[in-house]
């Protein structure tokens, strides 16, 4: 009965407010679910893909530069207890797909016992397929990819391997028995063909060990370790996936945290709606109290409404999030592919647990947001006490208390921003951002009150100013709800400003870095995937061709390989120090001239390290580092630390000649060409490409093209942040709409009175629209200030703690001002609907006397 009277009927009579709130919560949940789904899909494919593709293998033997083939022979003693299989796993590009694929090279004769792939019956018997694989550069293609590229057995498939154009023949189409998404982008070839394709003669990427039934894994691992040299690792396949997932964990955490702010705005909207609904039904609640309703019953009414909003908003949000995730996946794929080597998934699957979590979060957020309205509802006196009650707006907020609370939250934010990372995650810094948002919300009510005090009443002047002053007075009178709306706008603007500042600072820093650091005239690299990320390496033949054409003194091939530092994977890079020492072009943290740095490093066999490495391992200029590399340990003094925004796991760069003494020449990941003064880069590019002929699929970019490409990839990577900004702003505008309609309902008589005492329709509309604009403006100004502070935390703390990058703090002032203006205008436009409703009111009805 109570629920029907106080919740269902009002919702039926005025469904718009309820619906907008549900939509607001749904938008927040959708943003979170979409971001988590997309990033989980992209990341999970790297992690789960490892486990799935490893099949029944429980141990694997790996080494930084690959495992020498002869180690297979050393493991012969364990063959009675386990199956030992060689594997090569590399990345290649399928130009017709525009995307990277994993190429899995396996021993076809024994691998069926490790991985179960169901071959299509149409392609012939397994023996026929195996024959094609072994004799005709055959490849097995997953059914989903075959369908997408319209491939059948016998068709040719062009791939780019180490930038070399290669043609394979489809030997058969397979269907994975489970986890189809893990196999979505995997091509299977014979291990010998993989060795040929990737230049791994005599080496394989890993040896997988599958224990036979009943064999103790730990004992087997210990036995294998005893048989093998100490430079190789024997570990569970999951460890390899874990290393990848660690690298993207910070990325995922930050994206989720950002989407969480949309949810925060949604919570403010729920609180606004519930508070409004309680205030509007205050008289009715008071009558109910007089007639015997307990406080508990009134609390149940509020909680029921919050629950309904949470459940409906959560369900809609989870569904919306699934669609949003598809849109977000492209951006997240680019980001993840840039962070780790691999092939992120292309399909989204909403996990039931995420759906349940989304629903629960919506309910919890709604119930938490109901706290203050709940206090107001149960504090409603019986109707006899209501008339003698002092109006809420006469109870001046304790400005000192609010100011102290705001200052306390700001101090807390400052302290948290200085706290170190928690397990490599910027948890304290993000809590600092939350404290800043809290300060914004706390100060909204006294700010509105002060605004009203400073603005004289209607006698302060005439004409156009009167509606504005009346609007300020009305907002101050309903400031409890108005402050929620201003707070919601403020939070949304703060989010937009913070992200905008972070992205702009990052972008400007990267552009500067590219301008200073990218001095070569021509860059040559393998074709990139549609994600913008480079796939594989350049064949050494490309280097030799360039050296023949232009001379060794202008060629800087840049190699990368895997090494470990204190047990953690890092990238070991190598460049031609002698070439860079002549031309320079890298920004060093201590401001030294890069030519001087490289010349000294070359003389002393020293290394340069990137900033993420320096931060991750707390290493500085002059320190000595020890890396585990094939064949032992590499000890180098650190000559200098350079800024780098492309290798977040940390990179050490040594001279190429030193590098090639440790690692086999698998080809560089890119090649820079420093032409003599006066030479035409475009002509040089044409000369190189024509010398390479059609044999290699490479991109040769001129200096400006590469710098433009860097910015293009950057923009695509951060595209998702713009969507999150839009969601937050939309939710904030909904909050303003909710409050305005509520204020309109509350102030019907006042507006009717305005008409009766000489106010025109335009003035009445102006009063309502001005309230909307004022809410927007107050929120926008507060949001701008707090957003800049959060931006500072993101730029100076979160990025450093998450990725080890030092960025300059460069707010995009004009864009920020435009954002604040846009939000204010959006609120004003949103206010036109209630303004129109106010104009359509009939004063005679609203002024009808009781009794």
């Amino acid at each position, binding site marked *: 009965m109570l629920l029907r009277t106080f919740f269902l009927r009002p919702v039926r009579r005025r469904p718009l407010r309820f619906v907008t709130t549900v939509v607001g919560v749904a938008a927040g949940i959708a943003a979170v679910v979409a971001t988590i789904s997309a990033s989980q899909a992209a990341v999970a494919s790297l992690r789960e893909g490892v486990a799935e593709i490893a099949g029944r293998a429980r141990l694997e033997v790996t080494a930084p530069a690959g495992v020498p083939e002869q180690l297979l022979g050393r493991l012969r003693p364990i063959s009675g207890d386990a199956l030992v299989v060689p594997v090569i796993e590399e990345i290649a590009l399928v130009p017709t797909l525009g995307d990277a694929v994993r190429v899995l090279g396996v021993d076809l004769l024994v691998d069926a016992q490790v991985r179960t792939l169901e071959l299509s019956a149409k392609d012939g018997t397994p023996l026929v397929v195996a024959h094609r694989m072994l004799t005709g550069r055959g490849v097995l293609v997953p059914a989903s990819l075959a369908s997408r590229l319209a491939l059948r057995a016998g068709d040719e498939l062009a791939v780019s391997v180490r930038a070399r154009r290669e043609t394979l023949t489809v030997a058969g189409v397979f269907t994975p028995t489970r986890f189809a998404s893990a196999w979505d982008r995997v091509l299977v070839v014979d291990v010998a063909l993989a060795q040929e394709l990737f230049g791994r003669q005599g080496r394989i990427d890993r040896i997988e060990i599958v224990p036979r039934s009943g064999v103790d894994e730990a004992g087997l691992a210990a036995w294998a370790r005893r048989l093998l040299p100490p430079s190789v690792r024997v570990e569970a396949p999951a460890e390899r996936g874990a290393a990848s997932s660690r690298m993207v964990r910070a990325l995922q955490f930050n994206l989720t945290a950002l989407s969480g702010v949309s949810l925060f705005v949604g919570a403010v909207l729920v609180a606004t709606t519930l508070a409004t609904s309680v205030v509007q039904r205050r008289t009715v609640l008071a009558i109910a109290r007089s007639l015997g309703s307990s406080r508990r019953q009134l609390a149940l009414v509020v909680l029921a409404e919050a629950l309904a909003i949470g459940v409906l908003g959560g369900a809609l949000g989870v569904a919306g999030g699934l669609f949003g995730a598809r849109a977000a996946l492209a951006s997240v794929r680019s980001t993840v592919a840039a962070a780790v080597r691999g092939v992120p998934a292309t399909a989204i699957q909403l996990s039931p647990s995420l759906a349940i979590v989304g629903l629960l979060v919506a309910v919890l957020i709604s119930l938490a947001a109901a706290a203050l309205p709940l206090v107001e509802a149960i504090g409603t006196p019986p109707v006899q006490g209501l008339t003698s009650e*002092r*109006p809420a*707006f*006469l109870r001046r907020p304790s400005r000192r208390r609010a100011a102290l609370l705001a200052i306390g939250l700001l101090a807390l934010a400052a302290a948290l921003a200085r706290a170190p990372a928690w397990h490599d995650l910027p948890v304290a810094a993000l809590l600092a951002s939350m404290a800043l948002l809290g300060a914004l919300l706390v100060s909204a009510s006294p700010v509105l009150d002060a605004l009203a005090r400073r603005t004289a*009443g*209607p*006698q*302060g*002047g*005439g*004409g156009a100013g*009167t509606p504005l*002053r*009346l609007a300020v*007075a*009305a907002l*101050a*009178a309903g400031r409890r709800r108005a402050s929620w709306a201003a707070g919601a706008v403020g939070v949304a603007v703060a989010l937009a400003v913070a992200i905008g500042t972070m992205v702009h600072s990052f972008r400007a820093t990267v552009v500067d870095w590219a301008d200073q650091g990218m001095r070569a005239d021509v860059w040559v690299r393998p074709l990139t995937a549609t994600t913008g990320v480079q796939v594989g390496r350049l064949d050494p033949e490309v280097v030799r061709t360039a050296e023949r054409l232009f001379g060794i003194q202008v060629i800087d091939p840049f190699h990368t390989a895997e090494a470990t530092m204190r047990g953690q994977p890092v990238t070991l890079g190598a460049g031609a120090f002698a070439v860079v020492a002549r031309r320079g072009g890298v920004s060093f943290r201590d401001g030294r001239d890069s030519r001087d740095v490289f010349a000294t490093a070359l003389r002393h066999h020293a290394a340069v390290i990137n900033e993420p490495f320096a931060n991750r391992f707390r290493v500085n200029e002059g320190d000595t580092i020890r890396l585990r590399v094939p064949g032992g340990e590499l000890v180098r003094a650190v000559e200098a630390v350079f800024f780098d925004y492309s290798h977040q796991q940390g990179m050490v760069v040594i001279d190429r000649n030193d590098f090639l003494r440790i690692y086999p020449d698998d080809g560089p990941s890119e090649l820079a060409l420093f032409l003599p003064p006066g030479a035409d880069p475009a002509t040089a590019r044409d000369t190189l490409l024509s010398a390479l002929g059609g044999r290699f699929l490479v991109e040769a970019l001129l200096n400006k093209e590469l710098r433009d490409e860097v910015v293009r990839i950057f923009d695509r990577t951060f595209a998702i942040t713009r969507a999150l900004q839009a969601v937050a702003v939309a939710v904030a505008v909904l909050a303003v709409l909710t409050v305005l309609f509520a204020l309109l309902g509350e102030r019907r*008589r*006042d507006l*009717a*009175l*305005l*008409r*009766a*005492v*000489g*106010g*025109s*329709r335009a*003035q009445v509309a102006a009063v309502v629209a001005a309230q909307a604009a004022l809410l927007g403006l107050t929120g926008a100004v507060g949001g701008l200030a707090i957003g800049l502070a959060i931006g500072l935390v993101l730029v100076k703390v979160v990025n450093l703690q998450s990725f080890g990058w030092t960025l300059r703090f460069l707010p995009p002032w004009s864009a920020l001002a435009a954002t604040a203006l846009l939000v204010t205008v959006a609120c004003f436009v949103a206010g036109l609907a209630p303004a129109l409703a106010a104009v359509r009111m*009939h*004063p*005679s009805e609203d*002024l*009808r*006397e*009781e*009794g």
Partner: protein
Amino acid sequence: MEIVTELRSVTKRYRRGDELVNALHDVSFTLGASEMVALVGPSGCGKSTTLNLVAGVDRPDEGQVIVCGTDLAAAGEPALVQARRHCIGIIFQAFHLMPHLTVAENVALPLALDGRRDPARVDDLLRRVGLEHRRSHFPAELSGGEQQRTAVARALVHRPAVVLADEPTGSLDSASGAAVLQLMDELRRQEGSALLLATHDESLATLADRVIRLRDGGIEAVL
């Protein structure tokens, strides 16, 4: 005597559910400058409807409502606004003050809406209604009588030709009601405004120059 308000054969109907109710039927009367006319009759007889029509917040279905020379029944919105700004002052039974404006701000409201500013006039009226010391208070901080005195000052601040008062003492105790009525009559005489008073209290009507008795939407008698 100059006629400041005239109703000519005014009919007003309301729809209540499926039923069409005649709130006023063929009502005609005039109100002279500085004259006080009382509309009396039981609840639902059409008193408030008449006042709403004269205030220009409602329109008749038939007939003319001429206030200060303007037929409000045919006037467009700008003319209605001008009539309310310059010619009409309203006092309600429930005071209807803006709760978030102070006493002085409430009184100044009609001037402000017209783009005018006259603090001296506001102060003068506040002094005359005895609320000078309450000028910065909000309505919720006033007694009923004080609130209605504020409403009286507001109704007169722009020197209207006609003041409309709808049961102005209905929410007050008898002593406060009598005091407010006396003040209202005194001030409007000083200002030269006509007063159209709607009341179901026959004793209040004794102050009026003329009494129009309404019943079931029609004029029963003019006394």
